[in-house]
C-alpha cells in the first residue's frame, strides 16, 4: 500500500529540471500520445483508469472529458486549477514546487486529448514563487520542442501559460476561476451551462486539479487498465494526502487508495501518531469543507468496519456517521482541542470567503460565525445550538455554488458529533474560558 506514482522520483536531485526529469522517463506520455494515439484513444485510457478528480468533488475525469463539446471552428480550453485554498490542503504546492515538469507533461498530454491549443494554469497569487518555478519549467519545455508549434513533428500546437489569482478561496470553484481568469471578480456562474459547453470566453472548457492532470502522464504510460488495478474498488490509483494538525510527522504522503485510516494516523511511515503522546479526538479528513468525525468514527465505520482512505469508505454512513475524501486535506485534532473554537474558526473562514452573491450564503455564514463566536467566548444560550443547525440547513442546497454547503457541513457535523461539548461550553461559560472540554466519555473508551 505504499506505491508511489506521482512522487516516484521526488528524491532524485535535480528532478525540478528538464534534463533530469527527462532522464528519469519524463515526457514519455507526450511522445506516446502524440506519435501513437489519437486524442480519443487518450480519453479512452483515462476513462478506463477510473481516476476521479483530485480537486475535491471526485468526479471521474474520463467522463468529464467526454462531455466536452466540440463545435467546429470554436477553440477549446484546458485550465488547470492550482488555486489550492481549501484549509488543510497543501499537496498541489508540493507537487508543483518539487516536480514542475510533472504538471507540464500532464498539461500537454491532456491538452492534446481535449484538442486545446492554448491552456492555462490558474495558480493562487500567494504562490507567486511557484509561478516562477513553473514559468522556468515551461521555458525549458518550449526550448526542447514539447511546447509551441508542431510538437515533436506531430502537427499539434500548444501554448501554455501560468496565470496568478490574487487571494480568494472562491476562485477555486471552477466557474469563479474562469471569471477571474477573464479579468473579473470571482463570482461563480449559474449552471447550466457547464464549462464543458460554455467555459473560458464562452468556449468549451475543462477545468481539472493539479494532481488530476499530473496523474494523466502515468495513466497514459501504463495504460488505463493497469492504473485501475491500483487502489481499491472505484477508488483507483494513488492520492496525495496533506497531513497537518497534532501529529508527529506533518507533510505530504502519496498513498494507495484503500490504506486503513488507523495505519495512516499511527504508522511512522505516515503521520507517526499523535504529538506528545496525546489521544486522538477528531479528524477532518478531506479539507475544511467535509464533515468532522470523532476518533471512534474515523477509525471505524458505524458498522464497526475498518475505515479506509478511499472515496467509498470515508463516505460510508453518509452525513450521519461518515465524511468525504475531498481534497485529501487531513487535519488531526488531539484530546485538548476545542471543537467549538475550531468550528468558529472555520465559520469565520467561510464568511470571509463568501463572494456575497446569494443571500443564504452571505447572511448565513455571517450569522453562524457570530453565534459560534458568542458560544466560544462564554455568551451563548442553549437555544443557539439548534439555531446553528437551522441556519446551516437554510444554506445547504440553496446557493449558486457549493461554498454554501461547504460552510454548512462543518458546523452541522461538529454539532452532530460533539453536541455535549457545545452544551458544556454554554452551561460552564466561565470554566470553558480557562480549560477545554477534553474527550467525550463515549469516545474515550474507544480510542488509543
Amino acid at each position: 500500500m505504499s506505491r508511489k506514482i506521482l512522487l516516484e522520483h521526488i528524491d532524485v536531485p535535480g528532478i525540478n529540471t528538464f534534463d533530469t526529469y527527462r532522464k528519469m522517463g519524463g515526457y514519455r506520455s507526450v511522445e506516446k500520445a502524440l506519435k501513437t494515439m489519437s486524442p480519443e484513444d487518450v480519453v479512452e485510457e483515462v476513462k478506463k483508469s477510473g481516476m476521479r478528480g483530485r480537486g475535491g468533488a471526485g468526479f471521474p475525469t474520463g467522463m468529464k472529458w467526454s462531455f466536452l463539446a466540440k463545435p467546429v471552428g470554436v477553440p477549446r480550453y484546458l485550465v488547470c486549477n492550482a488555486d489550492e485554498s481549501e484549509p488543510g490542503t497543501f499537496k498541489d504546492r508540493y507537487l508543483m514546487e518539487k516536480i514542475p515538469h510533472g504538471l507540464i507533461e500532464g498539461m500537454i498530454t491532456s491538452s492534446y486529448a481535449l484538442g486545446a491549443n492554448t491552456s492555462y494554469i490558474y495558480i493562487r497569487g500567494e504562490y507567486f514563487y511557484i509561478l516562477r518555478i513553473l514559468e522556468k519549467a515551461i521555458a525549458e519545455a518550449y526550448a526542447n520542442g514539447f511546447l509551441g508549434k508542431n510538437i515533436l513533428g506531430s502537427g499539434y500546437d500548444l501554448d501554455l501559460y501560468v496565470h496568478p489569482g490574487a487571494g480568494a478561496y472562491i476562485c477555486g470553484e471552477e466557474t469563479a476561476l474562469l471569471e477571474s481568469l477573464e479579468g473579473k471578480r470571482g463570482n461563480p456562474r449559474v449552471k447550466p451551462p457547464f464549462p464543458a459547453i460554455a467555459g473560458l470566453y464562452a468556449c468549451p472548457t475543462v477545468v481539472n486539479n493539479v494532481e488530476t492532470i499530473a496523474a494523466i502522464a502515468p495513466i497514459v504510460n501504463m495504460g488505463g487498465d493497469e492504473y485501475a488495478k491500483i487502489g481499491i474498488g472505484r477508488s483507483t490509483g494513488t492520492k496525495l494526502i496533506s497531513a497537518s494538525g497534532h501529529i508527529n510527522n506533518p507533510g505530504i504522503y502519496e498513498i494507495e487508495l484503500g490504506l486503513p485510516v488507523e495505519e495512516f494516523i499511527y504508522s511512522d511511515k505516515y503521520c507517526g501518531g499523535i504529538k506528545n503522546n496525546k489521544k486522538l479526538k477528531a479528524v477532518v479528513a478531506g479539507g475544511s469543507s467535509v464533515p468532522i468525525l470523532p476518533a471512534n468514527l474515523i477509525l471505524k465505520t458505524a458498522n464497526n468496519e475498518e475505515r479506509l482512505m478511499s472515496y467509498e469508505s470515508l463516505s460510508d454512513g453518509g452525513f450521519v456517521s461518515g465524511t468525504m475524501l475531498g481534497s485529501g486535506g487531513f487535519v488531526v485534532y488531539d484530546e485538548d482541542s476545542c471543537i467549538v473554537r475550531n468550528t468558529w474558526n472555520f465559520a469565520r473562514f467561510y464568511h470571509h470567503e463568501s463572494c456575497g452573491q446569494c443571500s443564504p450564503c452571505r447572511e448565513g455564514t455571517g450569522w453562524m460565525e457570530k453565534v459560534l463566536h458568542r458560544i466560544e467566548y462564554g455568551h451563548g444560550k442553549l437555544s443557539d445550538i439548534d439555531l446553528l443547525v437551522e441556519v446551516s440547513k437554510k444554506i445547504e442546497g440553496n446557493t449558486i455554488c457549493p461554498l454554501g454547503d461547504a460552510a454548512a457541513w462543518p458546523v452541522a457535523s461538529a454539532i452532530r458529533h460533539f453536541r455535549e461539548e457545545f452544551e458544556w461550553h454554554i452551561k460552564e461559560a466561565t470554566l470553558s474560558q480557562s480549560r477545554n472540554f477534553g474527550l467525550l466519555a463515549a469516545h474515550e473508551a474507544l480510542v488509543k
Partner: protein
Amino acid sequence: MNLAFSEEALTLSKALMKRYPEGKHKSALIPILHIAQAEFNGWLSSDAMDYVASIIGIKPIEVYEVASFYSMFNMQPVGKCSLEVCHTGPCAINGAESLISYLENKLNIKLGQTTADGMFTLKAVECLGSCGSAPMLQCGVNYYENLTNEKADELINRLTAENRLQSYTDIK
C-alpha cells in the same frame, strides 16, 4: 494622473496581454495589478488603478471592482513589509494565535495596523497552503514556516535591515 510604470514593467504588461486571445486581453488585469502594486509602494491608489485601466484600455470601474474583490490587493497604504500570518484552523491549533500576540507585542501594533515608521503591517490571513508547517507567515513572495518567537525576531531584524518594499512579485 502622473503615475507611470517603469520601462520594464510596461514591457512586461504588454507581453502579458498577448497571452490571451485577440480581444480578451482584459484577462491580464490581475497579473498587471500585481505589477502595479509592486511598482507603486505596495498598494493600489485610484490613480494607480486608473493608470492600469489606461494600459489595458478598459474603464476604470472595471479595475476598481476587481481590485477590491481580492485580498492580496491593498486598497489602503501599507508598510514596506506586510506580515501575513495564517490564522485558519490547522494553523490556529498549532501556534498561530500566540505568534500573532507575540508580533503584536513586539511591534506594538494590533492586527491590521502599521508601525509608526511605516516598516511593518501586521495582518491575519486565511489558509496559505502551508498547514503542515504552522505557525507560518507570508511576507512578499516568501513563506516563513515553522516559526518560533526566536525565528520571528530574526526575521524582523532581517527585514528591517533590508529596508525595502517586499512584493509578492519579487523574484525568489
